[in-house]
């Protein structure tokens, strides 16, 4: 047991990984703080703030800021005295370390590279994350829950954001840091990071796996049946499902009515893209599915998804 976790301990206690341990502790604490307040607010209701409730910034707010400043500086100083920042061998462009990892806060994105081609995982998804974040206030038309913790009044928004942040961002960072070893292979905490590990993986495309329809013909050209089915699948997922929901509920749901077609299209498109990530992750991890849609133009233009 001790031997088994020795390797894990070496990784966890690497100086540059300490922030991630710190982050996990902080996020757990603040999640508890937020959700316990939300539960209390949902049960007891919230007290409207009154003009008479106002307090003077000096000393009531400045005092707290002063204490927080001292506390943060003490923590940072003690941390800096006790643990040295890493400084490895001098840069050597001819010697690639294995594993090569991006800075820890980008490891969620690096993990996505397992499931999507770089132009999606490294470019489109980060762009959509940023654009999606900026658009949140304009998409979320729910007027409730402005200025207090709640779950009951905005269950969908809180759930989606919490899953996005806690699982698709934070958990993937943790996975990428602690469980991705040489060759970006998955290692359990008790496994030794063997640089010579080779895993025989036979990845298969979705329609080959499910219907036995290959992605390419024998002469190397695209199999048009697969291209068509893939277009149906991906298009149906990203566009068809939102359109079906819109058609079915636009007259029934007051939320959809208030949103209007464009806000709904934007929100649903972003949501389906976000939902696509865990779906593709599941397909890859459970069934070794490489692409759900292989298509392109000519011989050097690929849009494999």
């Amino acid at each position, binding site marked *: 047991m001790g031997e088994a976790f020795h390797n894990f301990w070496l990784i966890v206690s690497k100086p540059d990984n300490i922030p991630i341990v*710190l982050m996990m502790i902080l996020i757990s604490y*603040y999640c508890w703080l937020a959700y316990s*307040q939300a539960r209390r607010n949902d049960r007891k209701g919230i007290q*409207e703030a*009154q003009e008479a409730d106002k307090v003077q910034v000096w000393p009531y707010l400045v005092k707290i800021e002063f204490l927080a400043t001292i506390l943060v500086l003490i923590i940072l100083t003690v941390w800096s005295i006790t643990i040295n920042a890493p400084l490895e061998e*001098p840069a050597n462009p001819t010697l690639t370390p294995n594993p090569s990892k*991006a800075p820890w806060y980008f490891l969620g994105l690096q993990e996505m590279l397992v499931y999507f081609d770089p132009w999606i995982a490294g470019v489109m998804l980060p762009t959509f994350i940023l654009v999606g974040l900026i658009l949140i206030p304009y998409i979320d038309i*729910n007027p409730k*829950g402005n200025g*207090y913790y709640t779950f009951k009044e905005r269950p969908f928004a809180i759930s989606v954001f919490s899953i996005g942040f806690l699982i698709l961002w934070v958990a993937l960072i943790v996975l990428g840091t602690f469980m991705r070893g040489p060759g970006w292979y998955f290692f359990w905490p008790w496994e030794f990071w063997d640089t010579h590990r080779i895993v025989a993986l036979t990845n298969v495309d979705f329609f080959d796996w499910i219907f036995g329809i290959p992605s390419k013909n024998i002469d190397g050209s695209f199999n048009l049946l697969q291209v068509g089915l893939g277009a149906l699948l991906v298009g149906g997922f990203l566009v068809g499902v939102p359109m079906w929901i819109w058609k079915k509920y636009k007259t029934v749901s007051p939320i959809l009515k208030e949103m209007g077609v464009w806000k709904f299209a934007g929100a649903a498109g972003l949501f389906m893209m976000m939902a696509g990530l865990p779906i593709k992750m599941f397909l890859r991890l459970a069934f070794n599915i490489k692409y759900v849609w292989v298509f392109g133009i000519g011989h050097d233009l690929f849009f494999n998804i």
Partner: protein
Amino acid sequence: MAKLPFVPPKPPPLDKLKKDITQHEAWKSIFRHGYQDNQRNRALQIVDNVFLHLHPVRVTRHATNYAYTWGMGGITFLLFIVLTITGIILMFYYRPTEAFAFGDMKALMNDVSFGPLIRNMHRWGAHAMVITVMLHMFRVFLTGSYKPPRQFNWGVGVILLLLTFLLSFTGYLLPWDQLAIWAVTVGTNMARAVPLQGSEGPFSNYLGLRPDNDIRFILLGGTMVGEPTLLRFYVGHCIFLPFIAATLMAVHFWRVRKDGGISGPVMDTKASAGAKYIAEQMAQKRLAQIKGVSTNGNGKAAPAKAPAAPKPAAAPVAAKPAATGGAAPAAGAAPGGAKAPPPWLKK
């Protein structure tokens, strides 16, 4: 009984000295107000201080509730200041060239007094800032604080989050060790895949994009992470990105004030609709103010625009009414055929 003559008690000797100092012209030129604990001095303490006047004089009680705010925005700003100070000190000991960079780091860790402390504070502070800025965003989302009238400031915050990542990422290269160049190599390899701009992205062959003329080449100043990259990341890290971040921070903080201070449960569950209404009122009042000023500038008397011309429009206090439900009904009389306030604002 004979009346005793009144003999004033002798003041303690230090009091005269204190009086001499605090009544002196030089002292009074620096400190504009007394320090007796009264409401006026507490207000002046904030208003007369260039650093503290970021704050309003008074805030709602929940703005001082740590369980509500988590203080993560403020801590992020504090860490930015710590990083600026330690970063400037580090710049005295560091040359961004292939020949010197790594050696300077070694010297910093082994020879410079307090060198390791300053460097460690810079690195751990940077990691901590990434964490606190993410937590700040999480808190703002969970409390719905991006809702009207704060939509724009949320967007500014997202850009600041991106800038924090970029600042950390550019700084990651500067030690010029194996960890640095390979982390940056992995990160910047993504630029190859940018559609229409990267040498391995979609359409690259049709546009004649090669490793030596695509967007990654512009980013790195070469086909691989090398000395030009080091200089680019150094200038980006020390000047370009902090400059943009500081500018956007000013916008971010200013908008916090203008959008009604720290968010809170101000107007029951219809807060959002109420805030929208207030934002409209604020815009109209601003317009009225500007019109008034320009008319005065022409030498004419300020026009009596509407018979129900708002008293609060003149008062600077009314410029930030969104923090309170109380100020809103008064603003309802703003000129320009304003809508009547929503029913829930009438108490």
